[in-house]
């Protein structure tokens, strides 16, 4: 069988840590990077006799994500115990949702190189996070329970994804929505968002699913794309050699760029799920859902659409600006104050985003307020300063955070747009360069650039080049 005749089938399980004030079943306040085992209590480390009590804020956040992905919200859902032994799980069971999840049947819209796609979401459920193990060769293993009980939502997609590229696009969209909602910081490297990938191959045109394998420990977009690629090739190799793909769980080893087998089907856990008797069934009424609906901000796709319509921006520009809500908000303030949408978009996408990259900071920590950037854009557009002077002013504003007008004054960058002043300068330059003037008049029209350069030099860049150019044309004649 030709290798082109396979279709890749991918489903993703995304775990997102919710930014609740307190943990899901106790009142500990989680804090990333706190000293080990200092953000714990009898409940989250499962001491004998301790009981879980559900944090309603975590339910509200899970419902937010459910509504954002157009899910049905269950009037009654149920927590179950998932039983397995591992030292990072202090009760040796996780409190999760099994056959009665909170949210069902949603979807995520993505843009791929091949056009838009809709990826269905099977379910979103709530559960508690486990602790973190650290192992050092030859020494004892250590466990930090600080992360135990941090609320997670697990977002399970349908097997609708076909390529590693689509998987990444899906994840980016999910991450973007989580961040828009402000319910998860979506950091793959720090693990506040984690992704497991299920992959199988099948002959093109087949509707049956092949045997799937799972990849865990994918902690960057690059790892996901590479991990998927690696696994697809591996499975294809197995099938083409006449073998059968075995149901396994693999770990991605970013160091070697390879998959390492974690467990086979035979070693798979029987989780012995049963309803969590310490918690009542979770009832969510219409009022709760309506309240959550009111909390949902404009989501990325709506915002992009509005940017296209309201600001007449291209698909590309609105996509870039809306990637992060805080950038989009920044842009909107700039655009509103200048009244110049496209110019504002260019400034934000080039100068501001470039500066953010250089500074390595987020827009919320950017030292220049959007109103001041708007002022700078207006100065350039009104010809008060030249475009290149604008760059200098911008650089100064990043350093000092000062008002653009003050910077212009301080640096003496105000553009010379006074015709009389410029005419005097032009006369002087023509007089000093008679040979060039002669050649220009003989048809060497590109010497105009030389003359404009001279005036810029003499004015130390302050001359309005457009105006100077016109004066030269007039005076040199020919």
């Amino acid at each position: 069988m030709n290798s082109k005749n396979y279709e890749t089938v991918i489903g993703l399980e995304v775990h997102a840590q919710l930014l609740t004030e307190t943990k899901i079943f106790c009142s500990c306040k989680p804090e990333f990077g706190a000293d080990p085992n200092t953000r714990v209590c009898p409940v989250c480390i499962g001491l004998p006799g301790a009981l879980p009590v559900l944090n309603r804020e975590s339910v509200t956040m899970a419902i937010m994500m459910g509504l954002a992905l157009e899910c049905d919200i269950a009037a009654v859902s149920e927590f179950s115990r998932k039983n397995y032994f591992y030292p990072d799980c202090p009760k040796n069971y996780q409190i999760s949702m099994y056959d009665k999840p909170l949210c069902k049947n949603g979807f995520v819209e993505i843009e791929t190189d091949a056009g838009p796609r809709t990826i269905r979401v099977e379910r979103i459920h709530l559960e508690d996070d486990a602790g973190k193990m650290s192992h050092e060769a030859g020494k004892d293993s250590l466990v930090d329970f600080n992360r135990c009980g941090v609320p997670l939502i697990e977002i399970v997609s349908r097997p609708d994804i076909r390529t590693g590229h689509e998987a990444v696009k899906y994840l980016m969209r999910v991450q973007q929505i989580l961040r828009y909602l402000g319910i998860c910081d979506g950091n793959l490297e720090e693990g506040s968002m984690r992704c497991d990938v299920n992959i199988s191959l099948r002959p093109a045109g087949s509707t049956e699913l092949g045997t799937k394998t799972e990849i865990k420990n994918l902690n960057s977009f690059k790892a996901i794309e590479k991990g998927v690629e690696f696994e697809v090739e591996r499975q294809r190799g197995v099938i083409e050699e006449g073998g059968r793909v075995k149901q396994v769980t693999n770990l991605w080893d970013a160091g070697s760029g390879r998959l390492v087998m974690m467990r086979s089907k035979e070693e798979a856990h029987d989780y012995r799920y049963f309803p969590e008797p310490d918690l009542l069934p979770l009832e969510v009424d219409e009022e709760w859902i309506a309240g959550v609906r009111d909390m949902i901000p404009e989501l990325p796709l709506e915002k992009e659409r509005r940017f296209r319509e309201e600001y007449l921006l291209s698909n590309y520009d609105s996509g870039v600006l809306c990637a992060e809500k805080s950038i989009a908000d920044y842009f909107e303030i700039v655009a509103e104050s200048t009244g110049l949408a496209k110019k504002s978009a260019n400034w934000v996408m080039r100068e501001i985003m470039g500066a953010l990259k250089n500074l390595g900071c987020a827009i919320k920590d950017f030292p220049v307020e959007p109103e001041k950037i708007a002022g700078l854009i207006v100065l350039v557009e009104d010809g008060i300063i030249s475009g290149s002077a604008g760059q200098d002013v911008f650089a100064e504003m990043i350093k000092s955070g000062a008002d653009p007008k003050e910077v212009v004054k301080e640096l003496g960058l105000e553009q010379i747009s006074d015709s009389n002043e410029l005419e005097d300068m032009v006369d002087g330059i023509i007089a000093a360069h008679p040979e060039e003037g002669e050649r220009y008049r003989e048809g060497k029209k590109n010497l105009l650039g030389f003359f404009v350069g001279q005036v810029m030099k003499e004015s130390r860049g302050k001359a309005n080049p457009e105006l100077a150019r016109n004066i030269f044309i007039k005076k040199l004649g020919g």
Partner: protein
Amino acid sequence: MELNKKSISELKELYSNGSVKPSEVVRACLDAISNKDTEIGAFLEVMPEDVLRRARELEKESPEEMPLYGIPIAVKDNICTIGSRTTCASKILEGYVPPYNATVVERLLDAGAIIIGKTNMDEFAMGSSTENSAYQITKNPWNMEFAPGGSSGGSAAAVAASMVPVALGSDTGGSIRQPASLCGVVGLKGTYGRVSRYGLVAFASSLDQIGPITRTVDDSAIVMNVISGRDPFDATTIPDEPGDFRAGLGRGVEQLKIAVPVDLERWDIDAELKDILKDTIEKLEEAGAKIEPVNFPDMDASIACYYVIANAEASSNLARYDGVKYAFRAEAETLDEMYERTRGEGFGDEVKRRILLGTYVLSAGYYDAYYNKAQQVRAMICSRFEAIFSANDLVMLPTVPGPSFRLGERIDNPIEMYLSDIFTTPANIAGIPAISVPAGLTRKGLPLGIQLMAGYTQEEKLLQGAAMLEKIYKFNKG
């Protein structure tokens, strides 16, 4: 004046008229413990210095504002107490000292009670004789060759031998009522959710309830008034505040409808106990109660259902004892070996038996046949009780089919031991309140008990009926 033999209500009276001080009462109880407990073995731990210090501190307070001012109380060793060991009579929790108090302990302390020590029990409350303790045997104060019952055997023996006026027990399938019956004291299990389980080391979460073991019905009501009520740390507590549990005492039984199962013949009930039951029915009718014969066909199903659900939950609840975090650990080379050896050496045979059974009934392929079926049976039993209580106020039947048995007699026959719970498990399965009242002695001098059950949250009626039984039997060892 033997202060250790006084009831709570008598002690309250003595305190309010100023004729005794807490330290005198506590000393009398400590003396009784040192005189008798070497032989009986009710206590796993007593801390005389702490107890006397607390008594003297209380002497600075006024008795009027504290409903349990100066009342010494023993606590079953599966209820967490800060600073004193809480082992559940298991080797696996050897030396474990919890960092927090159970809610009931907090409430007792706030009410002025003095916790005098921790009582012996069947390991993790699994058993009906207290012989499954990893630490010691407890003897029946009425005859030292006989078992005190279980699993709250230490608590029942301590109260029966007048070492304390009251002890807390826990009742998952009869573990308060059965030893109360075998030791000739009053044992009450409230409606499921009436008393907080926070800090009660879980055996079977959907069945466990803490309750008092006392020498009088009134004392039982006094303690329930203190320990009952909604607890924000236990999501399964009943949200409505209970009324005064003493309200129905002395009201008599006129017009009360008491259902008695007609088919008690099916079980091998002790002949003397049958006579008592017959006599009780006559006396209740004389007192104005209406005795209604009812069919109770689900009694057998109840015990089967109980052993599936309780063990399923236990298998998960006891998973946390793995040697990783606290108490007993068997050192080993690998993680799995450490788990296996810790649990292999740390748990006793009965606990292992139940964990295995519970794991089995939750396993893939067996879940529907066992766990799910048991849940259906549970729902059926609940509706059967609802029907009975829609037409009757109380159900009356023996607590246990007969008196106590010799130590060692049943320990090798788990099924026979399980069947002694036949009349007690239905109340746990249905979550309804039930009480065992001492009804007299066999010719050989062993106590017998009669049990009352009431509808959901109907403790007031339950205690009303129990007070009448107490009056009929005039049983108080003193």
